[in-house]
């Protein structure tokens, strides 16, 4: 792997840009690997990268049925924050935020992590009490989160409408300054480049159609659209399709897959300095470095694998955006799309061993997995390499739905998040 630097740019400028190499190789699949990761999204590629860089396991393949980063990694609204209520969640999401800070240097790839602050608006007394509880819980866990008055919120984000005449007036906000955004595609590409340079095989257009097990039950490999590939360990990191894949190994999951939509506006000059979320009126908005407003909508109410959702869901979000930011009422929307998110009953992820020997699963990130990408890959690689969870992901078991030891961020947030 050739290092990217200012000198490399100067050298290539003089050479007519003929010396740039492919960022990752596309080898033919081998007959067998030590570890197979199913799904080349951010989480899967990060897992492969940390397996190679932290645990010295380089005989790894990442199998992807479509193209790299083409699922939810390329479809989310790129929001990064760690202000979750429970200790377990705070642990895993803040682990990720710490890794985001410095990720560009580690990968030698600009993931454009921008800690521009994530502001969550409170519109009623319940919001205010809930957010202040979050703020106190966060501070006990060493996570920055602070309460802003409407005036302070307006100062932090000038386009915000804090008029008391609004349908749902802003009565305050919680601000995590370390929160922000990153360039979603670059995260997948950067991890892919880093993993590929360490010997990991990234195999696109290779759909897993079955998981083969020995008579004793242990995993022996996967059937794919390009033939059987053997492996001692298989990590499923397939987001919305996790239920389908785990079913191949006979493991039934506490998951449901829903469409989640997002949309972007026409690009405009910088107008929006931070990320603003409102759980109550259901709107998520930030501005990308390209200039588009990036807007997240809600999930549809029914399970689906269609990667598309109802127009009324987008409409509902845009109504809220226009109410909160009247300056956007005449903005034109450019594109909208949907992704399929796998939601657990407690809205917390599952990163764990499974009842099947050699089979590991990283799923259930629901509507908010992007922010966790580096942390998720880091602890999941540990889980696969050592065959035991990292202390950070130890609570995120599959068995918690039997024992009742839930990590109930669903109740904590009262909405999808």
């Amino acid at each position: 792997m050739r290092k990217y630097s200012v000198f490399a740019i100067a050298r290539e400028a003089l050479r007519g840009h003929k010396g740039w190499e492919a960022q990752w190789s596309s080898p033919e699949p081998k007959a067998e690997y030590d570890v197979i990761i199913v799904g080349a999204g951010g989480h899967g590629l990060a897992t492969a990268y940390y397996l190679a860089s932290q645990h010295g396991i380089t005989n790894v393949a990442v199998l992807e049925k479509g193209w790299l980063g083409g699922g939810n990694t390329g479809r989310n609204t790129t929001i990064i924050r760690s202000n979750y209520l429970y200790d377990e969640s705070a642990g895993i999401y803040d682990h990720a935020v710490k890794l985001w800070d410095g990720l560009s240097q580690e990968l030698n790839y600009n993931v454009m992590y921008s800690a521009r602050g994530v502001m969550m608006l409170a519109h009623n007394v319940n919001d205010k009490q809930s957010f202040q509880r979050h703020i106190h819980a966060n501070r006990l866990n060493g996570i920055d989160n602070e309460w802003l008055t409407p005036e302070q919120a307006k100062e932090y984000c000038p386009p915000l409408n804090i008029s008391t005449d609004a349908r749902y007036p802003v009565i305050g906000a919680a601000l995590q300054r370390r929160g922000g955004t990153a360039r979603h595609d670059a995260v997948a590409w950067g991890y892919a480049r880093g993993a590929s340079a360490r010997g990991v095989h990234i195999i696109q257009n290779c759909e897993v159609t079955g998981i083969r097990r020995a008579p004793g039950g242990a995993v022996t490999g996967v059937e794919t659209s390009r033939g059987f590939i053997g492996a001692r360990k298989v990590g499923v990191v397939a987001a919305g399709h996790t239920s389908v894949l785990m079913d191949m190994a006979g493991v039934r999951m506490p998951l449901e897959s829903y469409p989640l939509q997002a949309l972007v506006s026409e690009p405009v000059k910088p107008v929006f300095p931070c990320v603003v979320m409102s759980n109550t009126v259901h709107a998520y908005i930030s501005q990308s470095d390209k200039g588009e407003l990036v807007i997240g909508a809600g999930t549809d109410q029914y399970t689906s694998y269609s990667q598309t959702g109802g127009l009324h869901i987008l409409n509902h979000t845009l109504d809220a955006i226009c109410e909160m930011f009247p300056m956007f009422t005449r903005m034109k929307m450019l594109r909208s799309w949907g992704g399929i998110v796998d939601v657990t009953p407690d809205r917390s992820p599952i990163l764990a061993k499974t009842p099947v020997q050699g089979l590991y699963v990283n799923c259930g990130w629901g509507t908010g997995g992007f922010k966790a990408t580096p942390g998720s890959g880091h602890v999941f690689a540990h889980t696969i390499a050592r065959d035991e969870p990292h202390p950070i992901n130890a609570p995120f078991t599959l068995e918690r739905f039997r024992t009742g030891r839930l990590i109930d961020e669903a109740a904590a947030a009262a909405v999808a998040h």
Partner: protein
Amino acid sequence: MLLIRCPYCEEERPELEFRNAGEAHVVRSADIAAESDEDFEKFFFIRANPKGITFERWRHVHGCARFFNAVRDTVSDKFFMTYKAGEPKPDLAKIMKSVPAAAPAASDDATEDKPKKPAARRAAAKKGDA
């Protein structure tokens, strides 16, 4: 937005009048206190979440307010049928026969048939055109 036929009101109405109420035919134990943790987990948390034909509950909350069941393809989001609560789970094979354009692959055989599915679908579409 989906158009959903309420089997009680006997007409198609927009999705906004309805609330989805999750997987259908999940039977609650008569003696829930005596149920093992494993069985309770299956009843309460584990879901089929099929890619293909799903059986689900809906409630016509802004209409007759009654619960009913539906059969839907989660890939195309098309409904095959809706039926009243308490009626037995329809036979999948019969549904397929009654809807000629229906996708041939159901959730149960999605694992084996996946690579063949698109080809089979195209073939079915051609027949329909002829």
